[in-house]
């Protein structure tokens, strides 16, 4: 068995393709372009939270206004003609 595996020692080392470095550089460049910088990410997250909070405030305000318009006023006067 040992001499069987030792055949692996005859495997010669291969030189990788010349184009490989350019491919790697391209991959690194692509990765840089796709990367969103951390401050930008914080800014996006903060604006999303701000928009959601403003929406909630606006909806609550609108609801309150609707409620005040819909309040039922009780008529205490007697509408029947006095006989």
């Amino acid at each position, binding site marked *: *068995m*040992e001499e*069987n*595996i*030792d*055949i*692996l*020692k*005859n*495997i*010669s*080392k*291969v*030189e*990788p*393709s010349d184009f*490989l*470095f350019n*491919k*790697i550089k391209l*991959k*690194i460049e692509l*990765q840089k372009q796709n990367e969103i910088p951390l401050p930008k990410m914080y800014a996006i997250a903060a604006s999303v939270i701000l928009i959601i909070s403003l929406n909630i405030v606006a909806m609550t305000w609108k609801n309150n206004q609707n409620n005040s318009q819909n309040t039922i006023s009780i008529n205490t006067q007697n509408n029947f003609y006095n006989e």
Partner: protein
Amino acid sequence: MEFQTIYIEHKKLVFNLALSYVQNVEDAEEITQDVFVSIHEKISSFNFNSNISTWIYRITINKSLDFIKYKKRKKRFGFITSLFFENNEEKNIDANDFNHPGVILEQQETVQHIFNAINQLKEEQKTVIILSKIEDKSHKEIAEIMNISTSAVESLLGRAKIKLAETLKQNEG
């Protein structure tokens, strides 16, 4: 150290180690790309007092093992989709995947046979065999690369050889 210098000095190491794991030029090139992208990302945090080759060995081993797992998953998914769809174009892609330019033609069949058995070993056993038999590393060097003790390397190597002998015998029979 400049990235290009690291690439020039280690490209052969990375490519050939990856080739030992996947035995296919295209796949080894893909792994090599991933390894150097990862090196480029992490180079600023690397402590240059420690051995850069050991670090690159570790990255290459991890990327190679990840690649194999990814390919197995893809193959499994391909099999499942082939059960539902008629188009079986991808079915035979891996049938003749062995493409190792470092192996001489007369030994191609025997080496492929041994690699088939190596590919059935557990990840750690496979790594130990590759580092010891192909990369010609000493037990101490393997221990450093794999971050384990020398005695652990010896026991892994022993178990790997037994398993390999069994698989080779089974495949012959």
